[in-house]
């Protein structure tokens, strides 16, 4: 996750327009109140709060995945846009490069 986010941040540092999409179990990465330190891990979730200072504000979650997991946006760390699978697909289609994790 940390190394994946490094790619996301670097893309912004190279002035690329970044669109972040969370779908499927990926949504769990955005859950609030993660306490990684109980496993002696660094809390990588906090870096999501830094996205805005790197001008990464286009962050979407997939509506169907949210519903299937009974997660609402107020349980997430950061403000996100909720979009349907179909809308997100259309946006990804326009990307020059797509990275998945």
């Amino acid at each position, binding site marked *: 996750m940390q190394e994946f986010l490094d790619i996301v941040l*670097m893309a912004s*540092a190279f002035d690329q327009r970044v669109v972040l999409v969370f779908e499927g179990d990926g949504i769990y990465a955005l859950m609030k109140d993660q306490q990684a330190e109980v496993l002696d891990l660094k809390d990588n979730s*906090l*870096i999501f709060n830094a996205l805005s*200072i790197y001008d990464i504000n286009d962050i979407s979650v997939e509506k169907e995945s949210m519903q299937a997991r009974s997660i609402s946006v107020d349980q997430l760390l950061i403000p996100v846009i909720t979009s349907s699978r179909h809308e997100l697909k259309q946006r990804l289609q326009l990307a020059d490069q797509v990275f998945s994790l």
Partner: protein
Amino acid sequence: MAALSGIERNEYGFLKKRSQWSEAIAEALALSDGLVLTAAHWEIICFMQGYYDDYKHQPNARLFAKAIKNTLGEEKASSIYLYTLFPDGPLKYANKYAGLPIPPSCI
């Protein structure tokens, strides 16, 4: 240097434990590198500590510049400005005096 005695440091001279950090330690670390810390240095050092506390993340040089630009302003993010303050590497030495780990890209 008396101030630094009893302070655990790694092979790069960085503090091993942030809990041992203090402003006096930062000044002593800088002095041993031949640097006297001014308000301008402190602005960057404090930015570094705040960034780390908020995000538990260490930026690389490019991200560091972008983060400074978007928080402290464009002129503070210029290489000329930052290298005037920390001639041997702004990212590395701002982290060092902040008592933070050495950023992976600075080894």
